[in-house]
């Protein structure tokens, strides 16, 4: 099977191409990482990087059996660029789709990169900066998710992660959220140095996870937003205004 992986959940734009087809073993990745202060380049980079890996492998779009997409959580706009690109590529070429949690990809990348058994046996915590003072977090151990995906303030991380220690070995935390909120993590988890590549999504880890994932239904394939949009209905706004008026009237009546 030839799997093309796309991830735009973080500021990076990540692409992987993995083939385990006989006579055509392939493992290619591309990543665009915005410079400090630069905006993510998802819209401009994603298809270009995907085209690059196919070109390097001398493959056409029609040769891809499955498109894997990281569904976050992460930045809403970035996720939509990844998912709409993946869906449309499948619509145009008729290939399969697979959805993978970007947090699971980070965790899998950590375990796959482990050079010693001890690291492979520690819980892998993936943290993606959720902005507004929160972080998306999830944890995996031996391929099982041991902490469900959620958005939490960084101050909640220590209590969440402390129970994930195995035989006294604390978990390892990676991702841009782990870098940003390092001071909230160091008491309960190891956080690699900022420059460590394990903080970034690995396109090949995405392809590996997607290789054996069930195929996704195109029209049901959506980002894992975790958060609802910020919006107040007119009815709720009116109710809030009425409540405020009533509270003011009650306060006035007490005087």
């Amino acid at each position, binding site marked *: 099977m030839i799997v093309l992986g796309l991830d735009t959940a973080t500021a990076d734009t990540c692409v992987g191409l993995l083939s385990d087809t006989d006579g055509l073993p392939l493992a290619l990745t591309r990543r665009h990482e915005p410079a400090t202060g630069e905006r993510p380049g998802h819209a*401009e*980079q994603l298809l*270009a990087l995907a*085209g690059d890996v196919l070109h390097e492998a001398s493959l056409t779009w029609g040769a891809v059996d499955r498109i894997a997409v990281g569904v976050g959580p992460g930045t809403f*706009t970035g996720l*939509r660029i990844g998912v709409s690109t993946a869906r449309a590529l499948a619509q*145009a070429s008729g290939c399969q789709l697979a959805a993978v949690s970007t947090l699971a990809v980070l965790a899998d990348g950590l375990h796959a990169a482990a050079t010693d058994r001890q690291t492979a046996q520690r819980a892998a915590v993936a943290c993606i900066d959720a902005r507004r003072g929160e972080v998306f977090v999830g944890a995996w151990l031996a391929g099982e998710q041991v902490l469900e995906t959620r958005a939490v303030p960084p101050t909640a991380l220590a209590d969440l992660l402390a129970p994930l220690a195995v035989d006294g070995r604390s978990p390892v935390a990676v991702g841009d959220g782990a870098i940003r909120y390092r001071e909230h993590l160091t008491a309960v988890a190891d956080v690699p140095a900022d420059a460590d590549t394990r903080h970034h999504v690995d396109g090949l880890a995405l392809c590996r996870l997607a290789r054996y994932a069930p195929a996704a239904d195109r029209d049901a394939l959506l980002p894992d937003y975790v958060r609802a949009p910020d*919006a107040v209905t*007119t009815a709720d706004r009116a109710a809030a205004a009425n409540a405020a008026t009533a509270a003011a009237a009650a306060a006035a009546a007490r005087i």
Partner: protein
Amino acid sequence: MILALETSCDDTCAAVVTDDGRLLSNVISSQEVHDAYGGVVPEIASRQHLQLMNLVVDDALKQAGVTLDDLRAVAVTRGPGLTGALLVGLATAKAIAVARGLPLIPVDHLQGHVAANFLVGEDGAPGLEPPFVCLVASGGHSFVARVDDHASFTVLGRTLDDAAGEALDKGARLLGLPFPGGPHVERLAAGGDAAAFSFPVAHGVPGLDMSFAGLKTSLLYTVRDLDAAHDGGAAARSADLAASYQHAVVDQLARRTVRALEQTGLDRLAIGGGVAANGPLRARLQDAAGTVHIPGRALCTDNAAMIGAAALHQPAADPADVPGLDVYATDRRSL
């Protein structure tokens, strides 16, 4: 033939247009979810576009009786509009074009509104040929332009603040009417006196430019004064308020349009955008020029057929540039 996609605001649209400007399908999936919020919520619009886009494309191809194999190009709105919304359409169009080896034709949304007039109507009526004066008034834009060819237009005047449809939406909200406001204001206004109240018509705005922001402030004060005079005072006069407010919006659009016809010496007028559906505006302008062309409603509000119509006269992007194409949120002509 061309497959065209449009997702600049809250309608998820796809259409198939033939090379001679005939419409084979024009699918518009309106996101009524926004009505409860009193306006378009960009994040909700973007989420809806993602859910609907591929289905709308499937539907447009099916209704046209064609497959992706029959296309010679893919066209898509690149801007202006809501960034997150535009990105869903652009990412989809780019991916289809690249995977299929088809040219991609990026289209300006406003050029699309102008090009809607070139299309053969659903009733077989021929499109309008340049030169003509074109008024486009909707919830997102209001401008009057001179159209000399199929590929471009010259803005003669534009709103300096709110769009006309936006003014109607905001007025509707002040009058306690649901979103979108235009049709509700028009219905209520039908039973009211348009001369009952005097709202500002931007006399101070030079040339053919327009301004609608002062209008809603004026309505706000009038409603407050009526309610202060006696409880429920504004509600009792709501039909007169709606009629007078609508008149102020229509009057400004009509005056600028008539002046544009005079200045250009042209005797052909096209009207587009959602506000083109407004009865009093149509009545005011129906005799303003020898030829007055108003496309069917589905071609006036945001739609992909107009993007396809514009694409027939726009160059395809260099294939090497297609993967890197990004959207633009604001009108490039104002930069």
